[in-house]
C-alpha cells in the first residue's frame, strides 16, 4: 500500500495551530501530501518552541520560520537554508493607542513599547536601530517590555504600543472595543523595514541528498497547492484548521477572519523566494546601530534547488 511506503516528513510550525498555517493543514487534510506519496507529521509550535533548535536536534525535517530568526540562527551555527517562501508579504505591525500621543516614529522616545521576543524581536530591533532610537529606556530612547501572549498591555494602558500581526492580534484589539480610529498602526512594510516571514527552512545537509531534495520538492508542491486551496475556500480552510486545534481555545469567527488576512499575505506567491525581498531583509538586519542582528552578509542562506523542481 502506498501509505506504507510513503516518505515520512516532519514539519515544525512556528506557533500554535491557527489559520496562519492553513496551507499545510489543508494539504494534510485534503490528501495533497498523500497524493505526493508523503506521510507528513505537523508539529504545532508554542511560545517556547524555537523551530531552529528543534531542527538542529533532529526532531523535524522542515520548519516554518521568519527570515531574521533563521539568519540569526545561521550565524549561531545552525545552517538553515530557505527552500521556499509561501508568505510574500509581512503582516507585522506596531499598533499604538491614539490617546498615547504617538502618531509617528518621532513620538516614540520616552514611550513604552511591547515587543515579542524569542526570535521575533529582530525586525523591531533593526527598525529601531535604523531610526537611531536606543532601546534601553531613558528619555531619548524607548522602554521595551517583553510582551506576553496577548494585547492586554495596550488595552490596559501599560504600553503605548504593542506588536501585532495584521491577521491576528490587531483584531483582538478591535474586539476589545477599540475602533480603528482609536489606533495608530505602523506597518513594517510601510516603514521600509519589511522582513520575510513564514518561510520553509531545512538544514544544509538535507540538500546534499538528491532523494531528499525530491522529497522536499514534492512537499513544497503539495503545500503550495494547499495554500491555493485555502485561497479559494477560505471558510472551509478555517474549519479544517479548527479541526486540528487540540486546545479548543480558537473560535470560528476569529479563524475565518485570520484566514482572509493570511490569504492577502500569501496571494501571488508560488513558493519561489523573491531574492530581492530576501536581500532587503538582509539589508535591514545588517543596517545601522552598534548591535546589528546579523554581523555579515550570509551566503547560501537560500536556494532554489527545491522550487526549481516545482
Amino acid at each position, binding site marked *: 500500500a502506498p501509505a506504507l511506503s510513503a516518505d515520512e516528513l516532519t514539519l515544525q510550525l512556528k506557533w500554535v495551530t491557527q489559520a496562519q498555517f492553513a496551507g499545510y493543514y489543508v494539504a494534510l487534510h485534503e490528501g495533497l501530501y498523500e497524493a505526493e506519496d508523503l506521510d507528513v507529521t505537523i508539529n504545532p509550535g508554542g*511560545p*517556547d518552541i*524555537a523551530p*531552529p*533548535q528543534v531542527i*538542529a*536536534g533532529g526532531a523535524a525535517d522542515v520548519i516554518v520560520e521568519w527570515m531574521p*530568526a533563521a539568519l*540569526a*540562527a545561521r550565524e*549561531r*551555527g*545552525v545552517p538553515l537554508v530557505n527552500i521556499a517562501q509561501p508568505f510574500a508579504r509581512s503582516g507585522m505591525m506596531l499598533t499604538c493607542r491614539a490617546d498615547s500621543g504617538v502618531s509617528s516614529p518621532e513620538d516614540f522616545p520616552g514611550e513604552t513599547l511591547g*515587543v515579542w*521576543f*524569542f*526570535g*521575533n*524581536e529582530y525586525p523591531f530591533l533593526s527598525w529601531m536601530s535604523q531610526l537611531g532610537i536606543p*532601546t*534601553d529606556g531613558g528619555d531619548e530612547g524607548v*522602554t*521595551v*517590555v*517583553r*510582551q*506576553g*501572549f496577548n494585547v*492586554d*498591555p495596550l488595552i*490596559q494602558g*501599560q*504600553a503605548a504600543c504593542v506588536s501585532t500581526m495584521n491577521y491576528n492580534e490587531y483584531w483582538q484589539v478591535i474586539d476589545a472595543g477599540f475602533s480603528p480610529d482609536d489606533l495608530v498602526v505602523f506597518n513594517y512594510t510601510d516603514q521600509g523595514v519589511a522582513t520575510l516571514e513564514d518561510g520553509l527552512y531545512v538544514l544544509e545537509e538535507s540538500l546534499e541528498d538528491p532523494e531528499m531534495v525530491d522529497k522536499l520538492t514534492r512537499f513544497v508542491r503539495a503545500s503550495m497547492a494547499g495554500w491555493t486551496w485555502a485561497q479559494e475556500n477560505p471558510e472551509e480552510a478555517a474549519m479544517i484548521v479548527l479541526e486540528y486545534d487540540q486546545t479548543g481555545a480558537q473560535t470560528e469567527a476569529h479563524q475565518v477572519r485570520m484566514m482572509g488576512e493570511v490569504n492577502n499575505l500569501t496571494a501571488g506567491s508560488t513558493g519561489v523566494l523573491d531574492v530581492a525581498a530576501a536581500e532587503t531583509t538582509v539589508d535591514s538586519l545588517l543596517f545601522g546601530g552598534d548591535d546589528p542582528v546579523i554581523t555579515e552578509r550570509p551566503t547560501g542562506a537560500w536556494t532554489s534547488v527545491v522550487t526549481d523542481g516545482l
Partner: protein
Amino acid sequence: MGLTGTSLLWAALAFWIVAWAANQRLAGLNLSGAPKVLINLLIPVLFGATLLVLWEGITRGLDVPQVVMPPPSMVWERIVSSTDILWADFQQTFLKAVIAGYVMGCGLGFVVAILVDRSPFWKAGIMPVGNLMSALPIIGIAPIMVMWFGFDWPSKAAVVVVMTFFPMLVNTLAGLNASGQMERDLMHTYASSYPQTLIKLRLPAAMPFIFNALKINSTLALIGAIVAEFFGTPIVGMGFRISTAVGSLNIDLVWAEIFVAALAGSLTYGAIALIERRVTFWHPSNRRAR
C-alpha cells in the same frame, strides 16, 4: 576526530568510575573533627565534578549539537564572558523580585498564622481554603499578576508572595501547635498571658517548622519569579534571558543563567539551613548525642 569522539566518552566514564571508587574510599574513612568536615565537603564536590565530566564527555563524545545541549566548558566560558548580563539579570530577578516577594510572602504568612491561630474558627476556615489555594498552579497566576501589577518586578514579587504565603501559613500554624500539651499546661499553671506563652513557648517550639517553610520557599521563590518572567517583563531578568536566549539559540547563555539560578538557590538554601542550625540548636535533629 581521533581523540574526541568515543574515546572522550570512555574517558568520562572512566573518570566516573574512578571518582566513584574514591568516594567509596572517602566515605569509608573514620575521621573526626576538621578532616571529617573537609571530607564531607569533598565527597559531594567530587560527585558534582563527576556529573560535569560525564556531561562534557557525552556532549562532546556523541557530538550533541550545542544548540541542543552545550558542554559545561562552553557554559563556563559564557559565564565568564557575560558577567555583566548575568549580574543585571540577577539584580532584576533575585535582588528585587525574589527578595521582596520572599520577605513579604513569608512575613504575611507568619503574621496571618499568628492572628488566625487564636481563633479555632478562622483556623478551621482558612486551612482547607489555604490548601486549595496552594494547589493553584502558579503558571496560571503569573499572567494575572502581570495584568494587575505591570511588567516590572512588582508583578514577579506578587507571584512569589502568592507562592510563599501558604507554605508559611500552614507550617507556622502547625508549628504553633507543636509545643507539647504538658509544656503548655506548665505555662497555664504560671497564669501566663497569651503573648508570654507565645513568645516564650510557642514561637521557639514552632521554629523548626518555620524554618522548614523558609527553606521550601527559598527554592519556590526563585522558580516562581523566573517563571513569571515568561509572561511579560522589561528586557532584563533571568527568566526573560532564558526564554529569549532559547529563541536566539544562545543555549550556553541559558545554562549560564541556570547556573546562576542554581547557585543562588543553593546558597540561599544553605544560608537558611545554617541559620536554622543556630536558631534551633536544641532540636534533636541538630544536636549530636550527649
